[in-house]
């Protein structure tokens, strides 16, 4: 049984994190939060970056599926 594709897990985790942070950044950012981070809406920007990361991994996993081009023999046991 072959191992599942890690790239999809990374895409999933950062997709969820990204969306949550973007929602917080848009809808639930107080002036106090902004002041803490020097006026930067850090939740929004970090969230966008995470969504992009998730998209990159999802695209990579889709375009180059795992094991598609592996034709090598499994290693022999000792």
């Amino acid at each position, binding site marked *: *049984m*072959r*191992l*599942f594709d*890690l790239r999809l*897990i*990374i895409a*999933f*985790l*950062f997709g*969820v*994190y990204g969306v*949550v*942070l973007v929602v*917080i*950044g848009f809808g*639930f*950012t*107080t002036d*106090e*939060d*902004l002041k*803490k*981070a*020097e006026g*930067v809406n*850090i*939740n929004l*920007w*970090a969230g966008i*970056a*995470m969504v992009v*990361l998730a998209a990159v991994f999802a695209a990579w996993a889709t375009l180059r599926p*795992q094991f598609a*081009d*592996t*034709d*090598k023999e*499994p*290693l022999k*046991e*000792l």
Partner: protein
Amino acid sequence: MSILAEADLRLDAGPIDYALLLIYFVVVLGIGVMARRSVSSSLDFLLSGRSLPAWVTGLAFISANLGALELMGMTANGAQYGMATVHYYWIGAIPAMVFLGLVMMPFYYGSKVRSVPEFMRRRFGKPAHLVNAISFAVAQILIAGINLFALAVIIDALLGWPLPVSICVAALVVLAYTTLGGLSAAIYNEVLQFFVIVAALAPLTIVGLIKVGGWQGIVEKVTDKEQLSAWPATELTGIEHPVWSVIGLVFGLGFVLSFGYWTTNFAEVQRAMSAKSMSAAKRTPIIGAYPKALIPAIIIIPGIIAALIVPEMAQLKAGDTSSGVAYNDVLPLLMRDLLPNGILGIAITGLLASFMAGVAANVSSFNTVFTYDLWQDYIKKDRPDEYYLRVGRLATVGACVLAIGTAFIAASLGGSNIMDYIQALFSFFNAPLFATFILGMFWKRMTPTAGWVGLLAGTFTAIFIYAISEPSFGIELLELPGQGASFLGAGLAFVVDIVVSFAVSLVTRPKPDSELGGLVYSLTPKEDRAHSTTGDDAGWYRSPALLGGGVLALTTVLYFIFA
């Protein structure tokens, strides 16, 4: 071990932060459950069936080293010593990682050994093997315990959970996914952890940089301008004379300590051994070297920034200790001051993730050495593979239980420095180990007796130097502050090991050539050391030598920029 001082570091974590943390735990355990389906033999469990792609093993290679003790320690060094801290990442890691990939991996992977101690057994026989296997296994348990204890102290300071609760919860989570999915689950989680740590540190660095006025702001505000350049790092080494300081860095840190650590530490090498081909195994440490070279940007720079913008940290730097903070508190203080809820939860998750991955690396390398090198070699030979798979799983449970025990011992010692000493001592064992390996790989005349005698002689040298230079032992014959003593101890241990091994080899009998194929350079045909260049290993950008040259060039350029 005073990881965190008495200061109040309590973070204002809200429900959303806990929710993000919880999501991470669910994914981590999910990886364990899913990885279980791919485990059908002991090799699957203990070495991922040698099936992983190079980018996965490469990131896991670096992540296994990016434990939270390292994170806290290196941000602290950044605050205390400034740019000189980059030596731990550049000269103290990159050359050794490239060397492991290009020079040593052909023997480790090509000989099909399942662990570093097993290489020792095949090359030098049982006495050297037993010394190596037992000391490694003991060290991993103790270090796992130290990691657990450190984790609990930080959770207590940040979130107010009692020590026993965090020790047990963290150990149970690690236990759950490593027992289920074995090394595959540990490695997959290490890769995930790498990204979470970056996601935690990058926003912290960016907000910090904006607050301090960018790189220009740092240059203007740092009062001791020497801290803006990497060389000669006299403060870091504790060696006053700049030339000797540079020599100490290059030979002590850059050669002996770093080659010893990166090339013989099975917790690291195991990640490369689980790669799916010789090419992928060679590329593993080299791919890991790229993030290693770049990550100081989000570890050391926040440290420098903290010393400028966190009031307590600036006071400490000016010599005023009244606020009760220590340099190790850099990350929690920055998180407290700069991150709003939401991203704060990610940062907490990153810290926790890095602790757990550290413990998982210890546990997953321990169970392999225990199962193959101790149980199979000395206790129950020739059982069917399912038997050893079961032993591997039980060893994982045992390791976690023992690590919890060690963590509680550390806690009952009041977080005493004893655990720190133990960790320092084991780090010295690496230098003689590297000497023995490198001599054994390139000199076929080196005998089995020389293997274990040299190792013991080198190790005792390291312990001796440590004992006479550590102030708290009261027999301080050598006075070397900073890192000087460990550079000297490791350097001498290396030399003594080489000299003793050479002398003993001349008067004892070597192994016949027929038993050394694949283990010694001159007796391994070139094609056995070469890697395939077809299929998944094709393409110039997958050439280990080219990638290795690239990261060495990158590091050199970085040194020029931050000289």
